[in-house]
């Protein structure tokens, strides 16, 4: 639980190129390690992870299920303590939740007792924005995620994907400087996923929000990101940091280009190893448990 000294060496796969390129980091993750103690076993969910995120950058995190992506995001969001290492936002070490960071959670997180509109207005209400203004703003973001006409519905009257869109709108409406999204499009069909991803990207490009996205969808990662961070399976380390040097805006031409396909293929190779290792390990566990 001790923070490393500021001069601690940064491991080679950190993605920290700030010294070379000279950009400012909106977010620095420095040697973060998190272990869970469960009964008799200790799980290292995140192992010595370091990376920097540029201001206004779109960074995707991709890795096999259970590799520690959500854990990493909860640490960055200040929701999870008991880790070693340090997270810095705007140069300052964070202790707990930070007002510049907005999160979209992997689990369903809408408030069932609030209508769609009131869900989206919640963070604005909490920050003390006036009623008329916040409802206006909320309505704007509700229609942005394609839920116009559903303002007065309650989450129980929506599909899983629609609820997830409410959660996305709720975080976007708050306009955080840094946006953390944990598989926000997982419950959506391919077309909606693509269109909504594109919309989030448009907002991000317009507002220059620093965005971190967890996804299992390689195409989505390439479509949206400036860089993609590939994580290993247990312990969760950084395996590779891939620059996506495709031109923006990522029009249909770009998405159907050879360069795009090459990026997808490259990421897939990186990931395949880890995914098979993850599966093999759980199979070993199952057969071991049965024996």
């Amino acid at each position, binding site marked *: 639980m001790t923070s490393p000294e500021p001069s601690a060496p940064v491991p080679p796969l950190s993605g920290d190129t700030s010294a070379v390129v000279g950009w400012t980091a909106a977010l620095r993750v420095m040697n973060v390690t998190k272990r869970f103690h469960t009964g008799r076993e200790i799980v290292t969910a995140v192992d010595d992870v370091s990376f920097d995120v540029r201001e206004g950058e779109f960074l995707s995190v991709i890795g096999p299920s259970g590799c520690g992506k959500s854990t990493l995001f*909860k640490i960055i*969001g*200040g*929701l999870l303590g008991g880790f070693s290492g340090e997270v810095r936002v705007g140069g300052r070490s964070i202790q707990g*939740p*930070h*007002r510049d*960071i*907005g*999160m979209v*959670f992997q*689990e*369903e*997180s809408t*408030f*069932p*007792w609030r*209508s769609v*509109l*009131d869900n989206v207005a*919640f*963070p604005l209400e*909490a*920050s003390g924005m006036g*009623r008329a203004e916040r*409802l*206006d703003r909320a*309505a704007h973001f509700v229609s942005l995620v394609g839920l116009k006409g559903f*303002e*007065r519905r*309650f989450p129980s009257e929506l599909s899983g994907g629609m609820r997830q869109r409410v959660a996305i709108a*709720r975080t976007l409406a*708050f306009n955080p400087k840094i946006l953390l999204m944990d598989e926000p499009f997982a419950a959506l069909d391919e077309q909606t996923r693509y269109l909504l991803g594109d919309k989030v990207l448009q907002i991000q490009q317009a507002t220059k929000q620093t965005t971190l996205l967890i996804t299992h969808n390689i195409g989505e990662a390439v479509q949206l990101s400036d860089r993609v961070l590939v994580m290993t399976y247990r312990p969760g380390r950084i395996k590779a940091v891939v620059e996506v040097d495709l031109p923006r805006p990522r029009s249909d031409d770009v998405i159907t280009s050879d360069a795009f396909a090459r990026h997808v293929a490259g990421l897939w190779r990186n990931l395949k190893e880890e995914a098979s290792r993850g599966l093999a390990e759980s199979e070993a566990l199952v057969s071991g448990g049965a024996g």
Partner: protein
Amino acid sequence: MSDAATLSGRVRSRRPRFSPAPLLGVATVLGLLAALEALIRTGLVSPFVVPPPSTVLLAGIDLLWHGNGLEALLATAFELLSAAVLVGLIGLSVGTLLYRVTALRRTYEGWVAALAATPLVLVYPFFLVMFGRSAATIVAVGVVAGLPPMVLRTIEGFAGVRPVLVDVGRALNLRPVRVFWSIEFPAALPVIFSGFRLGLGFALINIVGMEFLINYGGLGQLINEHAELYDLPETYACIALVVVVSAVFVAASEHLERRLRG
């Protein structure tokens, strides 16, 4: 409806669509009463065992109009209201405390559960000594009986709040008090209210029982008097009035729940 109209005004609660359930419930009760009436009229059931519902109805109207039925009804309702407020406030506070402080919860939750299964009305001599033969004693017994389910369900309600909802508030940097009132409380409310309604039921049973027992105030006393004189129609009419009180309170609590959640 224009957009502005749709968006103006915070949505308070879901507008329930028409549901036949309450009407069907009333129809069933009326049907059963009619069948009973028929059984008595045809002589299959002796009117000295069960008075015909029509007679009970007339006796009830007479009690409310000319007798002291209305007075008794209001006395019982007022006692129940006092007990309900106390059960709500004390139960919520104690339940929240037990939920928050794990050590307390481990120590006392089992005891509260045991109390819930105990005929707490038996502690009435204690209150009789403290408050004398008065409404205070009756309310106190009602509160004691109503508290355990309220406390248990409050704990359960908070324990069942999905952690991610709390995380939404924490991620927004809300203070814990704010997270409690704007997230944990509304999220736990349905379960808390199911405990409150259980508590209301226990309180009413014990309030009427106490009125009967110490022959003081309210519908319980009225039942006592008429039963002793073997005035069966009046006795049954009083019991029906207890049901009316109960129904009104349950409906009011449902209304309150919607208001608090919205």
